[in-house]
């Protein structure tokens, strides 16, 4: 368990002041250099003294390291090193990683250098402590040090094992400070008993029980919750600066427990007592931003990178490249393109900040605690020493994600509200704003010489990335948006082969989208080029690709590894592709690649060597690629924890396979469009290859970083295998099915696009305005009824009021007349109509704002004739055309019930319709045309049917939504009655005639649907219909049954004839992947509970996509939230709203895919993207 530390400063003081301690300090000059440092900045920090190790009087050891565990297990490996060197059991060693109050500044945890570099002084500190303890024991036991041995934290006399003293006994009673001695003797590797042995990770038991304290789990007393709102240029920090134009604080006034809206420049955050309310406030906050659409096309990034201003930097110039190129035959000039990719940490970044006693504590998942400390000092104008960063583990990141950004966000909000604030980024924010792994373009010019060897190697690489300044610094204007250029495109830019004529050039350039280092920083793309190109040379020379490499690979350790991996994989030398054949539509292939990951500033240091043999299977029809098996070898020198190294190799293989096969960040002109997992799919369990790991044992060699190396050969090994399978070279990633299919089956010329159908709303409602002009004016105003004193509710019997409540339920009055804050009958709800927004009125008995001054006759006239008390006409959004059929006793009871409600004084917005509908007197003409009572009831039918007809056609006013309306907004009658309409942006399907759903709507289906909100054969009520079902709750079962009887008689028991399976609509490219990532977990995997199968859902089979689009954009509440008596097996989950996660295009693709897959015999919906944009523009239906 790792509870968080509330007071890091106290902890720092403990180590500085407490007794009974043996401490080892290290003295250095200057701090470690940082990326982006100005020259001399590191040295200017002056002499530093930092604690590395402490042995307590209880014999327990605490060791400090400036690097942090990013999920790679270095906490365990570092503890092993300390335990080994000190000869104490592993469980007595605790690691403190990356807390600024206690741990040394060792630079950021980057470049896999923790074990290779940062562990070195730790080991020396342990050796220094051990030497001191042995000497102290020598004095205590009165024996020479050569007579002593150390084991399990105790020093013994070798010849007299009973004569011993434990470390704790040696430490107790004094505080001893040692200075790290780099010359202190280290243990010989042969004597190791802990290092080099597989050791279980120390953190996993707590993580497997929920007891581990990730940064997300830190809670401090008095803490409140913050959310930030980022500018609408997702992932583009160069667009910032003066971007925020206006803030509408009133838009969040309704949020309970809102603490503050904080705005500083372009930085916007909200703070609330409860997390869900902070999230709601962030969603609701009305902000106006400067429009910006300045991003070049980064989906195919080659052109944008070539156009990006750059400074060439020559890393290598050997031989005479130009002359060699002139004589190359054949000449092979190639370009390789790497896409933008993301870390995709499973947990979006989180931090907690608290100002206390003039200082700041930030609990953070940062990768660079000391750099973050400096950033916060700059952001907040505070001295660094008043800022403590307490580092906690977060979700794995593989470079710079949003951990520092959110820490700064939390600090700003905590300062503004004077309380501790926890900020959790959303999934969308992490996806959008994490500094991306940059796209990269590699050019190779070369060819073969007369002997078939490489004639020359002229390599250029473009890497638009830097350190991604902490976002709050840019948002608040503390640092300029002008991006710095970091020279980091040079990792492994120099190829490992002994090309006689070679030139290597890095084009240093600023980022385009926000970008920083991601696992395999620039080396992974550079190696993609190197290792693809040498494969191409081998094929051109007619030589086996591994043999060809070995001819030019000067490094014997590398050659050993290459041979070992080839042998382990049973590599069969071959000189042309297609050696693995195929079966059916599948083609098989095998590819090789090798790399040593060279990291750090050029010329850099080499980490572990790695080589891959990848096996692939390709479906030549669909283009799907599977990596079926990877044999991966790695030479990491001494392995501290071989299990940990193996684990890292697995992780690298799986993650890099994912990157090569699937991953590419989507963009539009405003920024990142991949904002959830559907649009940024990663490898899932079914696609994970079999992995055979070969670890070269080299215990006598120094340990090398293993956190990234095994990723580096991935791309070339897989594309080389794909070449073996298909004979086609793939030089641009990722290898999606669409890309591979297009290469295997060049597309035919596309036919003309199908003509766009007129928007169905226009079709349904017509243009309308012209028709009105024909109507002559008659009786535009009607007389007012005099106002009255509000009737005393006591005048009505309880029975009457109870009856009125049921009438209100059957009439679903609240569906429209609910107040914006949920207050019953307060009105104000806007109903979107083709003519403009109609606001429902306040029908509480308030004399001014409501209907308290209305007599019953005035009320009845309004209900039946659509005329307000003062004589003005109501718009037929108020369904008076249905209420004309309501029985007198029911209307009186309804009046009594309404008069018994609490009066509410809130005024509602004035309805403003588009001309000419804005002229209320015209409604008189309208009424003359369309408003007449219809006879309902049929004496030949039973009482259920007649009761149902009364409820459906009268009080229930189903036709208000389910009947189409004519050009003037009137419900159509006759055959068109109940033949389907629209309400508040939702389709109200036809209630007459056979359903388009695959199963007919039976009486029992209607009953279940109206009573519980769900028919397990058709789907759930959503949108306005959910409100109707909820409203029907108080009605007795017999009334619901009556409605079901009547509705079933209208629908008949057949389904609509299915059109002959015409051309089944092909879903758009990539849509299946999107659906798989965004929807399948619940809709195919059951993670939301028992959903109605999409193939049965009526909305999927409709003529209109609106309800499906509504569901995706705005979500659907859970049954228990909406319905008084939910269907017994209704799932507890709500459908999430994807409005903020998906673009119009992405929603359209998901809807098209759902239609094609689950209603395969229905025609494709045309114009989907426009339909999504239109529905997005509607105010979401807000149910009560």
């Amino acid at each position, binding site marked *: 368990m790792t509870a968080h530390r509330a007071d890091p400063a106290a902890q720092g003081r403990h180590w500085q002041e407490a007794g009974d301690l043996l401490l080892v300090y290290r003295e250095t000059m200057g701090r470690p250099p940082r990326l982006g440092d100005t020259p001399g900045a590191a040295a200017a920090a002056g002499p530093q003294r930092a604690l590395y190790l402490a042995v307590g009087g209880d014999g327990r050891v605490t060791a400090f390291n400036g690097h942090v565990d990013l999920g790679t297990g270095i906490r365990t490996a570092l503890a092993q090193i300390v335990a080994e060197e000190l000869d104490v059991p592993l469980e007595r060693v605790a690691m403190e990683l990356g807390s600024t109050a206690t741990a040394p500044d060792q630079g950021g945890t980057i470049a896999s250098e923790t074990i290779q570099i940062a562990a070195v002084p730790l080991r020396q500190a342990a050796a220094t402590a051990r030497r001191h303890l042995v000497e102290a024991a020598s004095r205590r036991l009165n024996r020479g040090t050569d007579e002593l041995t150390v084991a399990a934290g105790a020093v013994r006399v070798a010849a007299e094992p009973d004569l011993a003293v434990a470390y704790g006994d040696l430490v107790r009673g004094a505080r001893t400070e040692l200075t790290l001695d780099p010359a202190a003797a280290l243990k010989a590797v042969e004597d190791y008993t802990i290092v080099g042995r597989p050791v279980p990770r120390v953190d996993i038991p707590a993580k497997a029980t929920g007891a581990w304290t990730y940064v*997300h789990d830190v809670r401090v007393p008095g803490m409140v919750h913050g959310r930030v709102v980022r500018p609408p240029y997702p992932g583009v920090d160069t667009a910032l600066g003066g971007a925020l134009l206006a803030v509408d604080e009133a838009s969040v006034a309704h949020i309970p427990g809102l603490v503050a809206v904080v705005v500083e420049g372009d930085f916007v955050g909200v703070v609330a007592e409860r997390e869900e309310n902070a999230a709601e406030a962030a969603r609701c906050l009305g902000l106006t931003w400067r429009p910006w659409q300045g991003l070049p096309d980064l989906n195919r990034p080659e052109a944008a990178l070539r156009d990006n201003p750059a400074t060439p930097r020559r890393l290598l110039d050997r031989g005479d490249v130009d002359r060699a190129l002139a004589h190359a035959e054949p000449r092979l000039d190639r370009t390789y393109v790497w896409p933008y990719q993301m870390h995709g940490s499973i947990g979006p970044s989180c931090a907690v900040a608290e100002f206390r006693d003039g200082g700041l504590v930030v609990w953070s998942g940062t990768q660079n605690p000391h750099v973050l400390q400096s950033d916060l000092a700059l952001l907040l104008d505070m001295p660094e020493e008043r800022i403590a960063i307490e580092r906690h583990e977060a979700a*794995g990141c593989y470079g710079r994600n949003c951990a520092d950004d959110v820490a700064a966000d939390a600090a700003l909000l905590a300062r503004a509200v004077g309380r501790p604030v926890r900020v959790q980024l959303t999934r969308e924010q992490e996806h959008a704003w994490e500094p991306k792994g940059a796209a990269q373009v590699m050019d190779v010019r070369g060819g073969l010489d007369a002997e078939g060897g490489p004639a020359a190697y002229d390599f250029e690489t473009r890497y638009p990335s830097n350190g991604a300044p902490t976002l709050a610094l840019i948002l608040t204007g503390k640092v300029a948006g002008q991006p710095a250029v970091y020279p980091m495109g040079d990792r492994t830019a120099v190829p490992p082969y002994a090309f006689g004529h070679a030139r290597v050039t890095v084009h240093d350039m600023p980022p385009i989208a926000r970008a920083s280092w991601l696992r395999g920083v620039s080396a992974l793309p550079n190696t993609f080029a190197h290792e693809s190109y040498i494969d191409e040379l081998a094929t051109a020379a007619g030589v086996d690709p591994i043999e060809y490499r070995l001819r030019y690979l000067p490094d014997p350790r590398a050659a050993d590894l290459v041979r070992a991996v080839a042998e382990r994989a049973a590599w069969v030398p071959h000189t042309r592709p297609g050696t693995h054949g195929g079966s059916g539509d599948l083609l098989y292939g095998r590819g090789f690649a090798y790399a040593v990951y060279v990291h750090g500033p050029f010329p850099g240091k080499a980490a572990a060597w790695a080589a891959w043999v990848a096996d692939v299977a390709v479906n030549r029809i669909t283009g799907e690629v599977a990596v079926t098996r990877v044999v991966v070898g790695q030479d990491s020198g001494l392995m501290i924890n071989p299990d940990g190294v193996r684990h890292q190799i697995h992780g690298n293989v799986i993650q890099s396979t994912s990157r090569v096969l699937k991953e590419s960040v989507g963009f539009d002109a405003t920024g990142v469009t991949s904002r959830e997992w559907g649009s940024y799919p990663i490898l899932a369990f079914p696609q994970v290859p079999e*992995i055979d790991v070969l670890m070269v044992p080299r215990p006598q060699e120094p340990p090398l970083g293993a956190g990234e190396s095994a990723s580096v050969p991935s791309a070339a090994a897989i594309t080389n295998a794909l070449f073996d399978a298909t004979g086609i070279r793939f030089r641009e990633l990722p290898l999606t099915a669409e890309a591979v299919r297009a290469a295997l089956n060049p597309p035919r010329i596309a036919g003309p696009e199908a003509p766009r159908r007129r928007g169905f709303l226009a079709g349904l409602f017509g243009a309308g305005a012209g028709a009105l002009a024909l109507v002559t004016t008659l009786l535009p105003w009607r007389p007012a009824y005099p106002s009255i004193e509000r009737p005393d509710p006591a005048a009505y019997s309880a029975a009457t009021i109870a009856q009125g409540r049921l009438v209100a339920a059957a009439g679903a009055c609240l569906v429209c007349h609910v107040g914006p804050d949920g207050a*019953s009958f307060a009105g104000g709800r806007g109903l979107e109509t083709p003519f403009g927004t109609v606001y429902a009125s306040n029908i509480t008995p308030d004399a001014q704002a409501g209907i308290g001054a209305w007599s019953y006759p005035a009320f009845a006239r309004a209900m039946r004739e659509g005329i307000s008390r003062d004589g003005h006409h109501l718009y037929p959004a108020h369904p008076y055309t249905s209420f004309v059929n309501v029985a007198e006793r029911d209307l009186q009871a309804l009046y009594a019930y309404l008069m018994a*409600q609490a009066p509410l004084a809130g005024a509602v917005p004035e309805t403003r319709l588009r001309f000419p509908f804005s002229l209320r007197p015209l409604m008189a003409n309208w009424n003359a045309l369309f408003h007449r009572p219809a006879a309902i009831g049929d004496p030949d039918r039973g009482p259920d049917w007649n009761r149902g007809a009364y409820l459906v056609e009268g009080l229930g006013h189903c036709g208000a939504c389910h009947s189409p309306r004519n050009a003037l907004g009137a419900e159509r009658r006759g055959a068109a009655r109940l033949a389907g309409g629209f309400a508040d942006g939702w389709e109200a399907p036809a209630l007459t005639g056979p359903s388009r759903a695959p199963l007919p709507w039976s009486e029992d289906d209607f009953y279940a649907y109206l009573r519980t909100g769900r028919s397990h054969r058709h789907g759930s009520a959503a949108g306005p219909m959910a409100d109707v079902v909820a409203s029907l709750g108080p009605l007795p079962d017999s009334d619901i049954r009556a409605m079901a009887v009547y509705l079933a008689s209208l629908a008949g028991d057949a389904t609509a004839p299915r059109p002959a399976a015409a051309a089944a609509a092909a879903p758009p490219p990539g849509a299946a992947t999107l659906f798989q990532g*965004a929807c399948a977990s619940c809709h195919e995997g059951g993670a939301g509970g028992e959903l109605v199968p999409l193939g049965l859902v009526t909305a999927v089979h409709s003529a209109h996509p609106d309800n499906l689009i509504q569901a995706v954009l705005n979500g659907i509440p859970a049954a228990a939230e909406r319905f008084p008596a939910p269907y017994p097996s209704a799932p507890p989950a*709500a459908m999430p709203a994807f409005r903020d996660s998906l673009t119009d295009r992405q929603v359209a693709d998901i809807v098209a895919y759902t239609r094609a897959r689950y209603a395969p015999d229905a025609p494709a919906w045309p114009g989907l993207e426009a339909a999504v944009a239109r529905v997005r523009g509607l105010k979401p239906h807000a149910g009560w």
Partner: protein
Amino acid sequence: MQDDRRPIANDTRLAPVRHVLTVNGRSAAVEAAPSTRLLYVLRNDLGLNGPKYGCGLGQCGSCTVLVDGRALRSCAIPLRAAVGRRIVTLEGLAEGGRLHPVQEAFVAENAAQCGYCLNGMIMTTVALLAANPDPSEAEIRSGLQANLCRCGTHIEILRAVRAAAARMRARGDGGDEA
């Protein structure tokens, strides 16, 4: 409920309401808006850190809890819908101080790197093995398909699931979910 003068429904969407949940075998009262996601309530009101926020969209599985024995996404479950259901979190799997065999297997196989997805992997496995005590490799992989892991711990996780299944069959407790 029986007051007929009471408006039919007047939940103001964000107003706190008292809910009583059954979590890890205990009853817990919570004051929050009915639409509050169960994940927030478990973490912030009940201090249960096992379930993790990952996406809020039901996609990644980090927030998985058992609801009446099924592995569901607590980020998509409104508080009101959790009332009357049996909820078990990662913290509630152990019995009598002894880890659930699935937890034991994940620990034994070192089946985590950062461990952020671990909650979802374990909870999904518990439900999977309760429904299918002897799953095939394909059934395990498809059962965990919608649980995302970014560190690439899949090999160790698959090994842990197989080991857990074997342990549970050997003990004969395969059918009893938490």
